[in-house]
């Protein structure tokens, strides 16, 4: 689905990712893991087509990203930004309906099918009761769920999400990531997401891409890549792993002496 060849990303003379050769197949669920400023969002924005590559190419379904007509591309992939600012008093349902834009090329108004898709998406995110609310009055977590609902309403085979669990409470973190996992497994959608919670990532992902921020990267199935030693190396902090009821749980290593002193 996504192929990158020799992809190099630079921000302000710093090379974040060097020569990334990465392939994402349909139906896979990828987590991008790395420290702050390691280039996770930059990579996702590049794959979404919001930013050019410094070197190398990104292909979607075998076609170079720049060769896609924007509207056609918008029916293939959806992108959730890390944060958003709302300047105008649009209602929640308006924001979700706007995600149907690529589907009604020459119509002035949305059709009833668009409204249905929007309402379904809101219901899937448990925010249908907020449909008429001004988005500027929603709480951070509610706004995030409305934004994810818009992503679902866009109804694309490829979903790119920059920290989808941002601002969500524990229950919604679990339900949203569970929904994404179901989309991968049942509907064969492809998900690439950024997250800082290793346990959530391990729970739903089939694959992981580690970024070190100095150009180094490592991609592979979670079982191979999400090892305590590797994660510790890439995240810059030692990580311990516990096996509990068939699940792997990652916890940051703590120096007990230091803790005792403080």
């Amino acid at each position, binding site marked *: 689905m996504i192929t990158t060849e020799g992809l190099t990303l630079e921000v302000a003379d710093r090379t974040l990712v060097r020569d990334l050769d990465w392939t994402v197949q349909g139906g896979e669920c990828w987590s991008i893991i790395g420290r702050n400023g390691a280039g996770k*969002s930059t990579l996702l*924005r590049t794959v*979404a*087509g*919001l*930013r050019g590559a410094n070197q190398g190419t990104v292909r979607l379904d075998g076609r170079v990203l720049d060769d896609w007509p*924007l*509207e*056609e*591309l*918008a*029916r293939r*992939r*959806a*992108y959730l*930004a890390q*944060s*958003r*600012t*709302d*300047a*105008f*008093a*649009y*209602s929640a349902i*308006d*924001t979700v309906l*706007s*995600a149907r*834009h*690529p589907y009604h090329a020459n119509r*002035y*108004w949305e059709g009833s099918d668009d409204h249905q898709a929007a309402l379904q998406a809101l219901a899937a995110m448990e925010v249908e009761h907020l449909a008429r609310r001004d988005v500027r009055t929603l709480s951070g977590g509610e706004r995030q769920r409305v934004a994810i609902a818009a992503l679902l309403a*866009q109804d694309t085979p490829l979903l790119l999400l920059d920290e989808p669990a941002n601002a969500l409470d524990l229950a919604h973190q679990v339900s949203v990531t569970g929904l994404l996992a179901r989309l991968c497994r049942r509907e064969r959608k492809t998900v690439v997401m950024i997250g800082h919670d290793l346990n959530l990532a391990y729970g739903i992902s089939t694959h992981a891409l580690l970024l070190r921020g100095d150009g180094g990267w490592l991609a592979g199935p979670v079982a191979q890549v999400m090892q305590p030693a590797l994660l510790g190396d890439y995240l810059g902090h030692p990580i311990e792993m516990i096996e509990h009821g068939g699940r792997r749980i990652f916890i940051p290593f703590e120096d007990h002496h230091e803790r005792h002193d403080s």
Partner: protein
Amino acid sequence: MIVGSLLLAALACLLFSGTTGSVTVGLAELPDAVDQVLHGRQDTLAASLLALRAGRALTAFVTGGALALAGIMMQALLRNPLADPYVLGISAGASVGALFALLMMCAAVVVDGAALLGAVAVSMLLYLLARRDMRGGVAAEGGTSTLLLTGVILMSACMALVTLMLSIAPEGALRNMVFWMIGDLAGTPLRVLPWIVLAGGLAFALRNARAMNVLALHADTARTLGIEVGRLRKGLFFVSGVLTASAVTNAGSIGFVGLIVPHACRFAFGPDHRVLIPSAVLLGGSFLVLCDTLARTVIAPTQLPVGAITALIGAPVFLYQLHQLRK
């Protein structure tokens, strides 16, 4: 439905403006007078008064409509509900041109031409300086802050030039210059060009109304929904610039219409540009027609500059709305 009723209201405003003035045209004479004007004859006093006032009212309408439309576009472009057509200094550029022409005691046509030239010069400069912002996708949380800041600074520079010219102007030219600055419809001939500009602007806006919604909602991320963000921003910039230049050239820099009317419409009909654009054009036109009627009747036969009236009505309305918004 909203647009339909606003259209009726706009027609009513035009007729109201035609009948009121130093000499009132009675309701009974109205149908006959309208009929005469439409057939190009002006046999009675009522008919010639109506023709005279209708010409001025139509100029007011096209100016108000253009300003309101430019305001909406500027707000969508900058994603800032407090933007107006003048915020980027296009009108200040026009002022510099027009005042210079007035200072040189040029003819009215030259003044209009100089205003247009000033507006175009500032737009070009602005475009060259803030090209990066238009393209979109440069900064991580991309926006148009460079464009806004550049515009505000250009405006201050132009206003400094304006102050300079006002301070050295001879007594004779000063009155005309001040009236031009405030915005005045007296003596403005009815032209065809502003209508063509407004029609073109409206067509562009309606075609892109849905895309403007997506841009207003998502900023740079609108690209992932199939919007050519760079092209849309450039289009909005140029079309609103041309609309502003046309309005300012026609009637001087009339304040507040481009800010108040989009705001009032957003407040009443919601932020959806598909409703907002036609309703704001109609409401903006009607508002300026009413203000102009007030301007020439309040202390008739003396005529006030219409810009003073719009600001006097606009400021309290705007403050009230802003207060409501905060609540």
